């Protein structure tokens, strides 16, 4: 195998897969990338057996073939090379020679035969989704994903489509057992059996998809293959194994009767909470909200540091209420809502609180209070 490629293209291709390769080094082959040339195209593939990615780049192929090399080392080498064409060729016993300008690298590779199987993708039955829409949904839910690996069914986002006549409501939900975040968008067309039933995308995969949506707006293709989801964008494909588990019935935790509604300026509350959180304890970040008809008093205290309080105007006409929250949970929500005012819908100090944007209805967040 031999090919010539420009530094820019090779670097971009390798950078993209760095987050995919296995870092724990349980199977050496998983920290490698598979490089394969067909015609004048280089396919770069990486996988950790849960999330895999394959992308194609233009190169000048001298001799077709394939090889695997350490993804991290190859990336580090290419990054330091001068801006010139790079010649990549394989030698006996899976050795690789890299030449660029006057620099020569001989590095060890591993046989491409050991590299895990990557499914070939047919483009039928794919669903088209606007990248901006998907990004919005991921941004407003992914912060609530659970990081406790023992709760594996919560280690991702749940995506479900519910058809309503001509339109379809697409819902994305994430929860860590203390708070929950839900986005709901109405779209044209139908979404196939997998999404009607609902699927859980793994955390790592969701962040790869989010990277897809960060460039200029485009259309993404979403399909399903056995127990995997396939996302395609131009020359790149991500395949991820769906989380095999039951997502809890989130509809039951979304409160319906929270009739004590406080309307607050989002930015004002956001900055106030950030200030107050400094004095709340390191791990639990507890803050207290005292709400009455005139104002909201936000306060925090820490036996080692001291205490802080701040009040702000409130738009509320119910009975006074005191409630405690983990400031981080509130800040996560306030950080992603794009609306000037938010509605804080409460019931009592031990019941879940619901947060919505005042102007939009597509976003819902539920946060469980802390005991004061």
């Amino acid at each position, binding site marked *: 195998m031999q090919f010539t490629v420009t530094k820019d293209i090779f670097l971009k291709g390798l950078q993209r897969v760095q987050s995919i390769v296995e870092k724990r080094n349980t199977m050496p082959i998983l920290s490698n990338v598979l490089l394969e040339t067909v015609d004048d195209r280089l396919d770069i593939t990486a996988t950790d057996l849960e999330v895999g990615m394959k992308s194609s780049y233009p190169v000048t192929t001298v001799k077709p073939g394939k090889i695997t090399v350490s993804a991290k080392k190859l990336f580090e080498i290419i990054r330091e090379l001068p801006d010139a064409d790079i010649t990549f060729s394989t030698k006996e016993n899976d050795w690789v020679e890299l030449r660029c300008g006057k620099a020569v690298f001989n590095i060890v590779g591993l046989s491409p035969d050991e590299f895990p199987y990557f499914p070939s993708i047919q483009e039928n039955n794919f669903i088209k989704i606007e990248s901006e829409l998907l990004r919005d949904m991921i941004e407003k839910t992914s912060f609530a994903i659970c990081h406790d690996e023992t709760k594996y069914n919560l280690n991702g986002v749940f995506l479900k489509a519910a058809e309503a006549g001509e339109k379809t409501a697409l819902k994305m939900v994430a929860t860590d*057992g203390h708070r929950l975040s839900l986005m709901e968008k109405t779209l044209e067309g139908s979404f196939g059996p997998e999404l009607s039933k609902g699927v859980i995308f793994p955390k790592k995969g969701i962040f790869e998809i989010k990277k897809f949506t960060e460039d200029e707006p485009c259309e993404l293709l979403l399909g399903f293959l056995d127990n995997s989801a396939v996302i395609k964008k131009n020359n790149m494909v991500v395949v991820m194994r769906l989380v095999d588990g039951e997502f809890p019935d989130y509809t*039951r*935790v979304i409160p319906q009767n929270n009739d004590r509604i406080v309307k607050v300026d989002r930015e004002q509350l956001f900055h106030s909470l950030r200030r107050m959180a400094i004095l709340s304890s390191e791990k639990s970040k507890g803050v207290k909200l005292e709400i009455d008809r005139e104002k909201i008093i936000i306060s925090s205290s820490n*036996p080692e540091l001291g205490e802080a309080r701040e009040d702000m105007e409130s738009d509320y006409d119910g009975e006074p209420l005191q409630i405690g929250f983990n400031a981080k949970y509130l800040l996560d929500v306030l950080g992603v809502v794009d609306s000037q005012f938010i509605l804080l819908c409460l019931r009592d100090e031990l019941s879940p609180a619901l947060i919505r944007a005042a102007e939009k209805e597509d976003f819902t967040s539920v946060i469980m209070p802390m*005991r*004061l």
Partner: protein
Amino acid sequence: MSDRVIMHMDMNSYFASVEQQTNPELKGKPIAVIGNGRTVITTASYEARAFGVKTGMNTWEARQKCPHIIFVVGDNRKYTYTSAEIVKILLDYTPLVEVFSIDESFMDITGSLRMFGSPERIAYLIKARIRHRFGLTCSIGIAPNKLLAKLASEMKKPDGLTVIRPVEVSRVLERVPIEDLCGIGSRTHRQLSLFGIQTCGDLGRFPVDILRRKFGIIGERLHYMGLGIDDSPVVPVEEAEEVKSVGHSMTLEKDISVRKDINKYLLQLSEMVGRRARRYGVAGKTVHLTVRYADFTTFGRQQTRKMPTNNSEEIFAEAVSILDTFVLTQPVRLLGVRITNLSYQREQLPLFAEERKKALATGAMDMVNNKFGDFTVTYGSILDTEEKGSHVISPAWRPSGIRNVDVR
């Protein structure tokens, strides 16, 4: 730190005296307080000490020394209650009271002299009040620092009052054997005697660089101890260092090797740990398990969780999974469960109903047990075991705060 007046109060044969006070029949007789089940003598009365009965002896050893000795099974509640009441008396004279153990306290009375007069007057007032209220005596030492105050209180027992004035320090220390200083144990003592150091006078004169080379940073402290210099402050409870762990251990009635029985004790210990942690709003990320075999070999293992917990069942599950990692080669004599890596937190309630019910049920259980006593409501699987809870007063016991363990 100059010109401080420090007082050390040491209750005389505390447990035995409390027993003699509560049961007049025991007054003036040789008695020894022992624990429940397998145990040694925790305290002997002065009458028994005259026969050579000492703390730590077996009951049969004690009976050999003093055939008519009366053994009394200790009632720890009496001792912790009395101790907490005594500390309240001390707090009337200075806020700077450091509870050193259940029967010893340090007080910094430097600032109290203007109000109460001389240090001796404060000492007599305290002694009189303790005697009047509880019928107990104590020995008090007054000196410029904690090291010397403790030394002074040891000098005259029972019912002593010893003052070491700053000008007398070197004269007094000259003849004091080094092992009388608090902080010099048998090992340090042995190592120092190899240098020919017998008294504090010797220690103070000994070249400090040799001590430093031998003992490291402790060497310098030893040097100052020999000179009777000690800058350590009296630390009241509320300023004491943050508690780093919450744990309980128990010596079992008899050695056991059946896994089911071991688990019962682990659940009981986990509940004790969980309850105390919940009461003081702390949760631990690391769970430790300590096992002592019949031959006293002791070892421990630990496991760190993703999330801190103070839930008894979760602590229990972690302890059991630690136990699963090794094969027990002998019957077990003692078990201990401890959580560390503590975070102080208010309780975050779970969102999903099933878990929330569990959290609220635990809260309800704690409320019942707070009102009617530990283990009033508890797990069915430990119902048949003997009396539950702490039977031993740990050296870390304190009259208030997280270290205040309810004992029975």
